[in-house]
């Protein structure tokens, strides 16, 4: 079983991100810790578990600047076999469609049975790239998957829909995007960390993949980032519950008029 996992390096969930005043469509990167996108970790873990159960090979692919190698090394340390980075340093404004074009081109270079990735990246929060890759490769996809079983060239997936779940059967190769609940990602073992340090990570560029900058021109373009409007100072009630509870209900009815 050849499995490709798409990962993205993103700012840590705790990071205080703020717009860069000299380039308002970007964030200030200095001082920020970058991690493997948490949803992608579920995808990596699932791929490794499949490999452990059925044998096979796990390739992790990312698009990013040189610092993104760190995310790939984390995946290798977890148990992935190989990694590939598509360097976007020359094209920092790629949109999701552009990224999917690069990823689909890169992964189509060798045969695979399954593509896994997170249901969304926690930086742009678009929830699109995995599905885009599926469409560009004319493969089916199943998104937001919390359970995955493989048998007879098929995947049986449980996915979340609002207020319920669906069970979906899909013929491989397919693209599956991971949701929390799929598994518990492991911590890399010491041996894995040593291995990952030494691993050579090949780097390709859009032009070496045969895609021109023109084809990658974004149709989704961030004009600027800003902090959300500050909320007004709230009214905080202290004292005996008998008083505060009644006062809260009054405020919600008469001042906020929410019920």
């Amino acid at each position: 079983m050849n499995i490709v996992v798409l990962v993205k390096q993103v700012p840590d969930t705790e990071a205080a991100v703020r717009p860069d005043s000299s380039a308002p469509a970007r964030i200030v990167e200095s001082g920020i810790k970058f991690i493997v996108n948490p949803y992608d970790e579920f995808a990596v873990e699932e791929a490794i578990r499949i490999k452990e159960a059925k044998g096979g090979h796990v390739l992790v692919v990312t698009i990013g600047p040189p610092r993104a190698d760190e995310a790939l090394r984390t995946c290798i340390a977890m148990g992935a076999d190989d990694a590939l980075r598509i360097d976007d340093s020359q094209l920092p404004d790629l949109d999701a469609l552009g990224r999917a074009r690069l990823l689909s081109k890169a992964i189509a270079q060798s045969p695979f049975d399954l593509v896994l990735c997170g249901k969304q990246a926690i930086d742009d929060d678009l929830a699109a790239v995995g599905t885009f890759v599926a469409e560009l490769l004319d493969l089916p996809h199943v998104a937001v998957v919390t359970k995955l079983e493989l048998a007879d060239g098929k995947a049986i997936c449980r996915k979340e829909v609002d207020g319920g779940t669906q069970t979906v059967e899909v013929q491989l190769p397919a693209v599956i995007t991971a949701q929390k609940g799929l598994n518990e990602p492991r911590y890399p073992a010491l041996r894995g960390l040593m291995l990952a340090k030494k691993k050579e990570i090949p780097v390709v560029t859009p032009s070496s993949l045969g895609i021109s900058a023109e084809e990658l021109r974004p149709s989704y373009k961030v004009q600027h980032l800003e902090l959300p409007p500050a909320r007004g100072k709230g009214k905080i009630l202290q004292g005996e519950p008998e008083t505060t509870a009644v006062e809260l209900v009054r405020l919600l009815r008469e001042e906020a008029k929410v019920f």
Partner: protein
Amino acid sequence: MASEVLVWVEFKDGVIRRSSLEAIGAATQVAAQLKCTVAAAVVGNADQQAMQCLDEVGVSRVYKVEGVEYQQFEPCRYADALQAVVKQSSPGLILMAATALGKDLSARLAARLRSALATDCIGLEVNDGQISVVRPVYAGKLRAKVGLSGPSPIVTVRPNTFAVPAAQSNRQPEVTGISAELGAASRKVTVRETVYSTGEMPDVSEADIVVSGGRGMKGPENFAILEELAKLLGGAVGASRSAVDAGWMDHQHQVGQTGKTISPNLYIACGISGATQHLAGMSSSKCIVAINKDPEANIFKVADYGVVGDLFRVVPLMIAEIKKLK
């Protein structure tokens, strides 16, 4: 020049979801500036009542793609269907609600049409024919203003953000039947079953009022008081990740970065500290209430109203007070 803004409408139990009506509201707002009318796309079967609802919200045309293959939602198939509609309509903009299904379908369709896609938008405007949106990014820590170009950009709008258009007298939209063929990818997917969790409570992502509990609830049995409060207010029960990880509530109820992003009119956080990942899911709520015994809890920083106190005393007293007023 495109002549239509197209809205995909989503049904649940034969009824149009409110979030789809909100998407029609958003479409109506921008249609005039794009010199367009609003058209709806209905995939699968919609009953008479649902169709009538579309008459009343002012759509001027309904494209219908019917067939047994659309009985259950499946994004590849629905993208096949919508692709056929888009071929006929060449819309200047495609809108849908950022529900689970809307997000899934919008991504497949955008790649199919090679269109720009912006999901989960909270603002939408047109300037000189250029469409731009505002969307929360970095889990709501920042907002991005994004320009969309190219043919038929697709925008999904966050539920509870745009107003449902006011009811009008029947406009009797023109109904156009469209037939579509299943693509290669669609033939490789089968939906075996869809199971909805029972219970009359609305889903957290669509409820006007959400009462959430965190680790401060101490155990699953205590969620009963939150359920009582939610029921009294016609709302839903949410939970922090700690409460979900502890097994007290199902993941469907989780609010936050790895749960659901919601914007209800009223969010009541009980025994929740207000970690950034939790705030990511609820900080665009219109009115936030926090009940926490720790006056230093981070949740108070975003709360419009807060009570410093023991939730096990405060919540039952609130319930009693609301009952008195009803």
